[in-house]
């Protein structure tokens, strides 16, 4: 037996110790790997609305759903993004909350002006048309509302397991003994 191929005992102990320290991470990673391809386990929601009124929550939920809908993977509503938006309203203070809620009011005003009804009473097609029109305006409160909601939904959706893992396929922040990097010959210089 070639002794030089055997890990030094101290080296082996170092690696075992480090692995033990990272074991909760490894176990966690293994669990995550097992769950990676399966839809997130549904659990009874204990989420509560913090600061939005019921009407505001319903409206921002619908807008979030239109921005990132359920497709063959969960959408923003499945990922509880409306609750996370409500959480941002609570955390960022009154200024932000008022800005967002007045934007939602503007959305309803525009819906009444164009269609004679509030946003939630419109068909999906008309809701999409209204949001599209908002996204094309310049320097208006409605455009500001659209941008704010789009930014929030994207930031928050892709910070959930449904968005980051299931939709995008992120599988990182785990324990790897080696990093293979790029193995594609056609990418090399």
């Amino acid at each position, binding site marked *: 037996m070639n002794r030089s191929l055997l890990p030094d005992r101290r080296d082996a102990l170092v690696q075992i110790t480090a692995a033990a320290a990272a074991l909760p991470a490894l176990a966690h990673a293994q669990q995550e790997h097992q769950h990676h391809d399966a839809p997130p386990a549904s659990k009874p929601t204990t989420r509560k609305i913090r600061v939005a009124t019921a009407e505001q929550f319903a409206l921002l939920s619908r807008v979030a759903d239109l921005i990132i*809908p359920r497709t063959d993977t969960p959408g923003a509503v499945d990922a509880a993004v409306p609750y996370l938006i409500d959480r941002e309203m609570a955390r960022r203070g009154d200024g932000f909350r008022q800005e967002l809620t007045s934007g939602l009011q503007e959305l309803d005003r525009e819906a009444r002006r164009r269609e004679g009804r509030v946003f939630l009473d419109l068909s999906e097609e008309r809701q999409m048309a209204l949001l599209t029109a908002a996204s094309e305006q310049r320097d208006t409160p409605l455009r500001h509302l659209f941008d704010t909601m789009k930014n929030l939904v*994207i930031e928050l959706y892709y910070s959930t397991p449904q968005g980051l893992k299931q939709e*995008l*396929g*992120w599988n990182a922040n785990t324990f790897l003994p080696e990093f293979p*990097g*790029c193995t594609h010959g056609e990418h090399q210089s």
Partner: protein
Amino acid sequence: MQVKSSPTVHDVIVIGSGAAGGMAAWNLTRQGVNVLMLDAGTRFPRTSFWSHVKPWDWRDRVDRGQSPPSFYLDTKEQPYETPEEHPFYLIRVWGRGGKTNVWGRVSLRYSDVDFAGPEKDGWEIPWPIRYRDVAPYYDKVDQLIGVCGGDDDQDSLPGSRYHLPAPAPRCGERLLQKAAKGAGVSIVSGRRAVLTRQHRGRAACHYCGACGRGCDVSAFFNASDYLVDPAFETKKLRIVDNAVAARILVDDRGLANGVQYFDRVTREEKKVYGKRIVVAASCVDSTRLLLNSRSDRYPNGIGNSNDVIGRYLCEQIRFHLTAFVPELLGGPVHNDDGIGGEHIYMPRFNHRDGRQRDYLRGFGMQFWGCGAQDSASWGKKLPGFGASLKADIKRHYPALVQLHPYGETLPRRENRITVEKTPLDRYGVPIARIEYAIGDNEHQMAREMYETCETILKAAKAEVMPYARGHLDTNGGAIHEHGTCRMGADPKRSALNAFQQMHEVKNVFVVDGSAFTTASEKNPTLTILALAWRATDYMAEEMRAGRV
């Protein structure tokens, strides 16, 4: 107010526990010197790091009232001042290991392109050292802390025989490298103080990519584990935690003889006495300390009769471009965490091609955030909404590349830190005022930085996200402050000699980034470590000879 003082006169007092202070304590104690270290905070316990906490779990923990370690100093606790028209983004860490708990680990050797640069272009003063003086210390630092990298060697980025294996680049990085090569731009392996194999009894990195939250297995260099703890084991090191240093005290002969500090918790004033002082509190805090150390002998601050200390502040200019390489659009998603941050680097090249330029000095480029990340914020800039946007974000996600060029800024006398008219902090000590602005030189350099990015991205046929050409990060954002207690051969134009010893006060050494004579385009920490080692070797020798 009761003033407590220690009757002990320590061999050396080291102020600061980061890269510079940690190295000073480590190198002095192993040579038998007794050191008292003052650290403005306490140890950040590794077991409390949230290295493996996912974004959704992070949110849940915060909602339950938990928080990760607070590495960054809150400006409510310790403010600083800037003119309104010239903001400066100052990041400080008060605690064991300082910024090395969360630093970027980019470890690039300076060269004579840096040390002798001012001799060639005539702007301000050259360093009083050359690469040959520092090279043996770079070698020692590489071996001590473990730096991974390639076997490349060039005039703006000297090589090393001691690199640990470089991590394999990600697909996007390889594609940028290939495209750049075709356009005549060299991109090499990055150099990072991350262990890609076991090193001196420490475990290798396990590629979780969470370095910015602190490494829970200490697989990258941090001064606390790699320097301060071993120094402590010599039994020659005593550490006072939560000690916010305020002033260096002097005796009748004009030599330093102690440090006034305040207990961060009780705000009690204390004094400790020592025969030699090593200042290593990070550029801005060290400079503030020196300027506040006024006396009849040194009305302008200790060692500052020539009005150099506080001046010539340099940071680096920087911006970021986001793009997507076509080969990876819609492709499979890999675990791209690697060693956290870039595996490649573009060294400075603008001094080689013989072209006449309308600016001095140069720039390099980093490539943080290539590949699959734990967010998709760039998706906000993709058009539309709905199922098509969702599909578009998914298609772009694996193809992300990011470019971050860093440019050297010129030292200017009027870019300075002062304390004369500033408000007092919670301990009654004047805070720092930072007056800093870049000039035409930097804006002209930025034009070529943008051109170089565009050349690489065009060669890569990349889809580039909209950007504002000419935009630069807020000053301070690179977190590479230097120059406000600079080394130089001429005592009229510098504060320190070639061994970082004060010209005017022979028993004070300043070993952090404030000692740098120029800023370079490269990250400073490796050079801080090498120079601090060299300076304290000299100090120890002078101590043995009875000259300090």
